């Protein structure tokens, strides 16, 4: 269960002055669903998810993950989530097995349980053949598998995927999506950010469309289609963003 309450993040920026990356973002994601965070590049998706993973501090608001506050209880939050993004790489000088084992131990799993869990994961993700391969020698797809294994080794109730399919070829991306779907079916609460609409359509129960740090629309995809009378999700997305841009451009003039 993820509950973002009025999350805000402002940076001091040389060019734009106080740059607002997140502006009062609120949403709730429930167990057993994939909550899609859709938005163009720079919309604030990564910032929001970094706050959820407690790597960044919000400048306003907070989020409750599985009952823990990201601001005041960051280590409990981290113990209950699995985080995977385009920015979380695997270690070059560690083998797949060592890497997953290391994080498993950091999560405090005892040795015996960890070994069983890892054997299961390595079988499930078809990673046995890259077990003793160093990160530096892995292909992108292999690295992605290691990252998934690393993120779910402690069987967290909440999973956060931040543009996890970036730069993957079709095959690898598809197998990642399948893995996410399976995790959803296991009852995990998953946040999945992307700017690829097809992925969202395949995977997400509900989506939020974010632009300039604000929530433009939220709800089940079908509901959104009906509400905005636009069948194609990509067109719907495009219309919303365009409208918001026009509104932002017009706002100073209106004042």
């Amino acid at each position, binding site marked *: 269960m993820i509950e973002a309450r009025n999350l805000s993040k402002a940076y001091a920026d040389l060019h734009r002055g106080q740059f607002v990356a997140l502006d009062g973002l609120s949403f709730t994601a429930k167990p057993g669903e994939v909550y899609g965070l859709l938005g163009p590049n720079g919309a604030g998706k990564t910032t929001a998810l970094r706050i959820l993973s407690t790597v960044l501090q919000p400048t306003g608001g907070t989020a409750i993950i599985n009952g823990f506050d990201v601001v005041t209880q960051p280590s409990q939050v981290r113990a209950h989530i699995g985080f995977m993004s385009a920015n979380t790489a695997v270690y070059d000088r*560690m083998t797949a097995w060592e890497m997953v084992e290391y994080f498993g131990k950091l999560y405090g799993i005892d040795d015996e349980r960890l070994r069983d869990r890892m054997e299961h994961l390595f079988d499930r993700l078809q990673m046995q053949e890259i077990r003793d391969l160093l990160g530096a020698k892995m292909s992108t797809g292999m690295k992605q598998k290691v990252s998934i294994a690393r993120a779910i080794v402690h069987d967290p109730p909440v999973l956060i995927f931040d543009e996890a399919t970036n730069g993957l070829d079709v095959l690898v991306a598809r197998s990642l999506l399948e893995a996410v779907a399976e995790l959803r079916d296991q009852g995990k609460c998953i946040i999945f950010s992307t700017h690829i609409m097809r992925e969202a359509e395949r995977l997400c129960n509900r989506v939020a469309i974010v632009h300039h740090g604000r929530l433009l629309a939220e709800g089940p995809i079908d509901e959104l289609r009906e509400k905005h009378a636009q069948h194609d999700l990509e067109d719907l997305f495009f219309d919303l963003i365009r409208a918001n841009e026009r509104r932002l451009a017009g706002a100073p003039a209106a004042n």
Partner: protein
Amino acid sequence: MQLKNVKLIYLREMRDQLRDRRTLFLIAVLPLLLYPLLGTSFFQLTQFLQKVEARVLVVGTRQLRSADWLPPLIRDNRFDLQLFDQPDWHDKIELYSPRDFPDLADDLRKGKSLPIAGAAPQASADEAAFDAAAKQLLDAGKVEAVLVFPNGFEDRLRDVRQALVQRKAAGATAFPEPIILYNSADDKSQVTQLRVDQILRRWRNEVTAENLTASNVPVEATTPFELRPRDMAQMQQRQAAVWSKVLPFFVFIWALTGAFYPAVDLCAGEKERGTLETLLTSPALRREIVWGKLLTVMTFSVVTALLNLGSLGMTGKFVIDNLSKSGAFGATEAMTMPPLTSLLWLAVALVPISALFSALCLACAAFARSTKEGQYYLMPIMLVTMPLMMLPMSPGVELNLGNSFIPVTGMVLLLRSVIEGQFALVLKFVWPVLGVTLICCLLAIRWAEEQFNRESVLFRESERLEIGRWLVHLVRDRQATPSFAQAALCVAIILITQFFVSLSAGMTGEFDFAFLAKAILVSQLACVFAPSILMTIMLTREPAKTLLLERTPRWSHLWLMAVLALALHPVVVAGANQITKIYPVPEATEQIAESIGSALDGAPHWLAALALMALLPALCEELAFRGFVLSGFRHVGHKWWAIALSAVAFGLVHTFLHQKISATMMGMIIGYVAVQTESIWPCVLLHTIHNSLQLSIHKLAQTAELNPSSPVGVLFGGESPLLYRTPSVLICAAVAAAILWRLHGVRYSRTVEEQLEEARQRQDSPLLGA
């Protein structure tokens, strides 16, 4: 913090580094190869040097050859073997006669005439031509030196001998002098000259001895006694003295280098490779990450230093053994291996120094965005630490209490004393040295942790350098109170302006009240008041809040502060007295204090003196240090860190060492008052009363002496008239402590960072037991 996690991270980082070929090469392979390689090339060089032979042209030997009464100088076209200290030089000096150079100038071939007896030696045209010819020969590199026996040299020697045998004075005042012509700009020529000089001296001694024998005078007549200096230092001691200076420097430099490269790889490298964010999303606390990495860096630092030491030792031993066999150096005795005990002590001292260097490197490396940027920071770190390591090598710097408070330097000096076996001295200063090293370590580690907690450092993006935009940004996007960096900058600006003002304010005319007033006004208004006020107005959105002017002070607080100032004064005076015992006041400082005192006597009114020396500095300094600087430092998230930092800054801007120390202590107390009362006025009051008491201590002491039964008289009269009695100091300390304790109960407002830190503390504390 869980040790399990620290260990996990440490083991992973170690494995990671050991799998990195580049690091391994630098840490382990390079030292193992470097010294043997250097040793080999050194050997090549010495072999090459040993082949070098010296050529000497000897002019005027004919006269020596005919004189068989003289001891032999030249035999078989070489100097006589008996004349050499080191026999191997016998074969290395080749002698030439003018016949060996067919195109030799006639002036040289002819030889040189002696100056005529009794007449002043004149530079004749002949002589100039002779010198020119010799110079040409030397410059052409045909010979290394020219040895000239002037014409008539043998006759003169015979005269001297006969005069001696017949017991009458020799006929001439000028002795016949052989001349060695050489070129001091050429090393080879210089060495040859020294050798030839030595040989001739020996030969002269033999001539003298024979002369004396011929005239039946005992040889002792010329040398009635010999000087025989005896070095009482034992061999071990002498070696210890040499090694104790060289080894710490060498080992600590390697400790720094060994820490730096892994630190860059572990922080900047991980950022670059994108694995840092992976680690940050794991449940490991930032503190655990820092400690794990720190221990890794430290391991590499220690191992690098030890490996280098070992490798150098092995190579050194081999080289020294061989050199002493071949006898290439006269001073082989000083070049034996360092004793094993010194090496052990070195290894012990290496641990805290490595810890300090590792934490420093880690903090700098954490700041770097990429490995390339990280490498740039080696130079600044070196610039800061090198002087600290070099200082103990300069002559006359010894272990004393003052030096033991200097980080690194104190440790090197302590180590030296241990190696030299001065254990009494070591016992005396081991605690201050260890204490200072520990404090520096903790500060550096805390700094490294701070770097890992800062988003702007962890997720730093590259930006173009745009000073104009940056300045606009500073003013446009200013915060309610200054940032930590702005507060630090303010301190730096105050220090720099003070430095330049003190440089330019030369003593012109008399040191009277007018001059003093001018100096104080400039230093307070221009150096302290102006920068802090300008920065407050330009860089903060809420100047009144920044300078603690928002709230009107409570009367009760003001009263308390007045009492606190009175109660603190005896304590401060007693403390200052203790400091003077540790660091005696330099004479120059005392003189300045005296001249300030006499200048104040010339004040038009005592109130003017108090306003100038007590009120003005109190007002300016409080606005700067408890206003702007403390407000900025409070963003670190813990009020005591902020208070301590602002107190150190406050201490730094004072001129003399004693002032610096006591001002830092006062700064702690006033800073605490500022945080608790949230108003600048209690601070100003406390500061003013304290300054006034300092100024009038002479007057107070006088009153006390004149009237011992008055209240002031009861307080005073400790060891010296200017000191309070010990009981009064103790009572006053108790009163001051009670007042500070009362302030402790006051509710004060916390900054956002402090609230967050407290919330985190509450969260972390139950985890400690888990």
